[in-house]
Structure formats: C-alpha cells, structure tokens
C-alpha cells in the first residue's frame, strides 16, 4: 500500500493499464476526497500538534470473488486511489500477491528508490567540506 500511495498517478495508470482487462469490482466506499490533519511533534520528538491539513483521497473496492481492497493517498486523485484499491484487493490472494509484488510493486519501488538516491546525491554535492587552516602553535 505504501508503494502504491507514493507512486505518481501517471506511473500507476500506465502500469495498471498494462495489466490488461480491469478486474470487475464494486465500490464499497469512495473514491472520495477529504482532508487529513497533518501532525508534527513539538521540538521534533515531543507532544503532538496540528500543523495543517492535506487533501487525501480514499477508496474501498470489492472484487467479484469477494476480496476487499483499501487505498488512501495524498492529493485529489480518485483514479489513482481506485486503481490502488483494486491492486490491494488482488493482493488478498497469496499467490496473486507474490506475482503482483514481483511484477507490479517491485519496479515502482525500484524507480522510487532511484529517484530518492539521485536526490540524496544531489544534496550530498552541496555538503560543505571545511578545511582547517594552520592555527595556533601546530
């Protein structure tokens, strides 16, 4: 669910389309957009406080075989969340889950990790290397 939520809507859409025919499903709730209050902690690790809200979309679907899937993601993204919920429902079946993990989730996760790594290396390039000048009696 984490990878599906972090994936951008376009990536998810194209990979979802590549799965072939969409499994028939009914919507038990949503997709609907609302708010979640984002919380932080005072001082970073102290008491919780409300920072402000974020838009969020959620959906719950049921497949023909009765499997239920849930999804929630930041933003106003009904299609993305509906697709993520269908994927989640498909994953309720152990064998199917292994297949989806390998062919669907893993590549998205890998792409996310690559993007994160690229950004980390860009930030690392802005690290200050202090040089110590000759000082004192040394």
């Amino acid at each position: 669910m984490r990878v599906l939520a972090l994936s951008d809507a376009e990536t998810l859409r194209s990979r979802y389309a590549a799965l072939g025919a969409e499994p028939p499903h009914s919507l038990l709730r949503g997709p609907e957009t609302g708010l979640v209050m984002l919380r932080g902690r005072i001082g970073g690790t102290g008491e919780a406080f409300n920072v402000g809200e974020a838009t969020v979309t959620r959906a719950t679907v049921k497949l023909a075989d009765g499997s239920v899937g849930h999804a929630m993601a930041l933003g106003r993204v009904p299609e993305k969340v509906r697709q993520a919920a269908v994927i989640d429902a498909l994953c309720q079946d152990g064998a199917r889950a292994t297949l989806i993990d390998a062919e669907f989730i893993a590549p998205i996760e890998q792409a996310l990790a690559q993007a994160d790594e690229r950004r980390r290396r860009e930030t690392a390039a802005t690290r200050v290397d202090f040089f110590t000048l000759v000082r004192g009696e040394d």
Partner: protein
Amino acid sequence: MFAQPSALEGGFARPVMDAQAVFRTVMDAMARPARVVPLNPMVTPPAPLSPAAAAIACTLFDADADFWLDSRLASHGAVVDWLVFHTGARSAPKPVDAAFALVTDIAAMPPLDRFAQGTQEYPDRSTTLVMQLPSLAGGSEMTFQGPGIKGHASIAPRGLPASFADQWRANGERFPRGVDVILADAEAVLCLPRSARLVNAEG
C-alpha cells in the same frame, strides 16, 4: 482489523445525496419537535442496528464526533466496525465523552443526566441520543409544548423507560444545558430537543 467483510457493505450508495436527504428529514423533525416524520433509511447495517438509526449515524457522525453504543450494540463487533467504516467516527468509552449515543436496549439505558450536558458557555457540547424504539406509536401518550410546536403536540412512542417523563422534566431544568433526543423506529423519526417541555404524561 475488521473481522467481517460485511462491515464494509451497506452504506449510502450516493453518500452526498443520501446523507443530505436524511439530514433534511432530521432537521425538519428537530425543527418541529414531537412530530413523527417518515424517513427513508437507504442503508443496510448489521443487526441489531436498525436501518433508520444507522442512516442517522451515517448522516451526523464524523471523525470529530465520537459515538457511544449501549452494551447490547457494543457487543456486536460488526456494528462497531460498520459505524467506524461508514462514518469515520470513533467509539467513545463513556456516555459523557460522546457527541452521539446509540441506544437499543432501552431498559438498560443510563439516565439522561449521565450523558454530556454541555456547558453554560457551550451548551452544544452535549450528547445527542439516538434511541431505537419498536414503534413511535402505541405507547402511552405524552404532550409537549415549546418552540417549533404550534399549541400542543402529542406523541405515544412505545418502549420508552418508565422514568422517561421525570428524566425529561429534569433535563429541561438544566436548560440551556441538557441532551437532545432522536427517537427512531423502522420507518420514521421523532425529535425531542431540550427546549420541548413535557406538559402532560399518561400513566
């Protein structure tokens, strides 16, 4: 995690339109106290929660309005899960912590003064009780006066506790504090806001 997948089904098919229709019904009933108003529930909750009470819950409860269930309802895990899933509200441990209360086992119901009464500054911070009754007719007659009632209004709901008349009078004495009550049977609702004064009660 929810044990029963049935907890996820049976909510409003069109959440916005359906909730608005039920809200309109409840608002009209609250504006005209002690009048029976038909309600089309449009939901199918797990037993023993009635569709009418469940429709009111789906309309009024939300993430910021915790609910309290009587022990009969609370013992049905599917009811708790259904309410949490379809309303986003959480279950409150004590009546006094709840914005709403759902009561089905009227005989075992805590007295009205055990629910949140609000404060003098914020009388709205009180519990609204939704009581699920066998019928809104056929019981002993009670007559009310007050804002929203032209002259007198009489009702005869079946299944109220014997001490209800006394409790309701005491509730009125706490004004502006006090609780509001929604009575629901299978197909209709009837509201008693705290401003409705009981002027006559049979037996």
